[in-house]
């Protein structure tokens, strides 16, 4: 009896050890980051606290006082003075991209200015904002004294109503929704979804009451085809004119009857430049790299890249071409360690892979979190997938009129710029780019905005309807045969 217990225990131990052998290496805690990050973290803590207190105090003040109309001249002056004080304190040229602080600062100035306080108060705000300034790099752009005050007025008659919005997480400014609630006197139910398929399936079950939703281009195509969206009345969205023509009249909605462009981003190659010695310029560099690489769990993106490398359309519906793309990917998958379900940036950070195919915003976030510049985001010369998200109004929305007002609000230049400053994705709103509120190094950051030449090489994912199953099958086969 005891012998058999012993044997059984050994067997169990043996099996568990065998199972462990197949798993990946455990998480490494980078020793260097501990030492160097601590002082940085301490200052970050202090500035976080200062800004939090400042914004808390200022917003409390603003909500107590009635929002009276402030003359533009006085506001401009006050803003100019406060930003001048800030620039004096601001450290020159920092390489790290700005964090949330700029948004907090601009909203505190906005709130106080709106109540037409004296310049002395504005100076006080500027001082508080200035103490938070070490994190900012807005020296050049604010010197031009852009209009930081959002002049958007809410149409009357919405007070007391409720708006329901369905969007990705962290895809809107920090205070955007709260400001909208205050401006219109409404309550906003704001909910997160994970991916486009979730939006489509939710709407197909019957709209549970969302007024405004967001989705990418190919999902918009599917939803229009299935009749899940309501037509948007552009006369209720005067700020529509701010949107850059480059993002209008796209193939999924040629007359922009259903969608209003919002933000755009790209999938590109992110790598740790301390490990990858030669800069990546082509997809072949990624495929031939001698080290661990992570691909993206985005079927259409990866297949699109492969199709393009073979000179086919990235949204091809020809099963033969799709198969060739799948074989191309399998052939080039020797160094693939994992197909990351949107956590490629985490793998990079932990050092488990040297190269990751990731979304632009994730890599930008990574740079901000690690407060370092060893991660490079680049688009290979053959081009890559870009995608645009647009605001939509689904059928059976409970409050479509308020939804229109919200979309109009999002396209106000100041609001759109503040959104960009927070989420670090490219905006489709040209007026926001021209407003000067977005710092120069973000406008030049390839993880956020792409220059015109690179933009030309980008391609969009389109709906493939009938061929959807071919893509699914190809993707499944790829996952089974990867690395072989």
């Amino acid at each position, binding site marked *: 009896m005891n012998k058999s217990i012993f044997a059984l225990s050994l067997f169990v131990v043996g099996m568990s050890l065998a199972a462990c052998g197949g798993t990946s290496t455990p998480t490494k805690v980078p020793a260097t980051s501990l030492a160097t990050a601590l002082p940085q*973290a301490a200052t970050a803590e202090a500035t976080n606290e200062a800004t939090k207190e400042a914004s808390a105090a200022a917003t409390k003040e603003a909500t107590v006082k009635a929002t009276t109309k402030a003359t533009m001249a006085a506001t401009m002056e006050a803003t100019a003075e406060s930003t001048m004080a800030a620039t004096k304190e601001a450290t020159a040229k920092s390489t790290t991209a700005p964090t949330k602080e700029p948004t907090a600062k601009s909203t505190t100035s906005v709130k106080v200015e709106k109540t037409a306080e004296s310049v002395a108060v504005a100076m006080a705000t500027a001082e508080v904002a200035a103490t938070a300034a070490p994190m900012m790099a807005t020296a050049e752009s604010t010197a031009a004294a852009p209009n930081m005050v959002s002049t958007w007025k809410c149409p009357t008659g919405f007070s007391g109503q409720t708006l*329901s919005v369905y969007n*990705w*997480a962290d895809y809107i400014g920090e205070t955007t929704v*709260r400001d909208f609630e205050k401006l219109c006197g409404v309550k906003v139910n704001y909910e997160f979804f*994970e991916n486009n398929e979730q939006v489509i399936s939710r709407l197909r079950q019957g709209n549970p009451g969302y007024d405004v939703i967001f989705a990418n281009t190919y999902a918009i195509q599917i939803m229009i085809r299935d009749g899940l969206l309501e037509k948007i009345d552009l006369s209720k969205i005067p700020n529509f004119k701010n949107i850059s023509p480059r993002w209008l009249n796209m193939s999924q909605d040629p007359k922009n009857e259903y969608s209003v462009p919002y933000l755009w981003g790209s999938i590109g190659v992110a790598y740790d430049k301390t490990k990858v010695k030669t800069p990546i310029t082509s997809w072949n560099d990624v495929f031939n790299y001698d080290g661990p690489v992570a691909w993206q769990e985005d079927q259409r993106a990866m297949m699109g890249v492969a199709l393009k490398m073979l000179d086919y359309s990235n949204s091809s519906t020809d099963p033969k071409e799709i198969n060739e793309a799948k074989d191309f990917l399998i052939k080039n998958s020797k160094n693939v360690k994992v197909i990351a379900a949107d956590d490629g940036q985490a793998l990079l950070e932990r050092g488990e892979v040297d190269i990751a195919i990731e979304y632009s*915003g994730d890599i930008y976030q990574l740079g901000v979190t690690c407060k370092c510049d060893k991660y490079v985001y680049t688009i290979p010369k053959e081009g890559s997938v870009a995608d645009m998200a647009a605001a939509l109004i689904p059928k059976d929305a409970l409050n479509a009129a308020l939804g229109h007002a919200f979309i109009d609000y999002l396209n106000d230049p100041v609001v759109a710029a503040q959104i960009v400053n927070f989420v670090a994705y490219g905006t489709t709103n040209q007026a926001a780019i021209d407003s000067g509120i977005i710092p120069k190094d973000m406008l030049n950051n390839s993880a956020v905005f792409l220059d015109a030449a690179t933009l030309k090489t980008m391609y969009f994912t389109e709906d493939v309807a009938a061929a959807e199953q071919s893509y699914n099958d190809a993707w499944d086969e790829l996952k089974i045969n990867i690395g072989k």
Partner: protein
Amino acid sequence: MANTVLNRTAVLGAETQPSQRYNPFYDQAGRATFWFVSVAGYFFLWAPIMLLVVFSFNNSRSVNAWHGFTFHWYENIFSTATGNESSFTNSLLMTSVVNSLIVGFFATVIATILGTMVALSLVRGHFPGKKYLDGLLLLPVIIPEITQGVSLAMFFRLIYDFIDRSTGLHALPGFGSIIIGHVVFNISYVAIVVRARLADMNPRLEEAAYDLGATGWQTFWRITFPLMMPGIVAGALLAFTLSLDDFVVTFFLSGVGTTTMPVFVYGLIKKTVTPDINAVSTLMLIVSTMLIGISLLLQNRK
């Protein structure tokens, strides 16, 4: 050692084969390995959770690399809970926790009442079809949650269509649908726990009460109910924990403005998982563990 273990030779006699005689090596090695396997098993199960708890103290927005120790995230939660301004995502997180608690409370109350009734009728009652009810009760425990979620979603869709056609009211999923969904699977768990407690109870006590002239109602409230109480509370705590943690069924049934915490965290995965989530999860872990612990203690009391 030899005294505490069954001595084969003494039992089977001197005719035993050498291989059958007691060998202390196997005994001790067996125990040691068993102990090792148990510890290793616990570690395997708890290590990821411990990692979650550790990173809730991470001094950085990242949950992948350790940057130092801080209580910052817990402070965030408590300051948001006490009404101060906080980050947008944080305030939505707290709203979802409140939603979770609301759903949990109502689902627990309803499920406990119904579950107790079912348990009583199964143990004390005699009616045709009792066997089938017994089997049906186990279904929500056995059926995969995804099946339950999808079928409930379709069921509610039918109901809403019916209401729409017959009264013109445009019914929408909301707290009602989520609570009903939770009650559906919670009834089973409560009934199982209360049944266990009832089975332990001596039916003679109730018979004695009847003999002494008490009515059915009096018997129930004065004898059965107080004796069942630990079981009912245990079942209620279990139901509350299950309701708080439930993701799949809630995901399929939620409407607008009814996001519970697990569904909320799921929505965050694509963009950012900050240690905020770790902190809230740690707190929920502590609460759930305490509740389950109390539930188990109550079940074991005589």
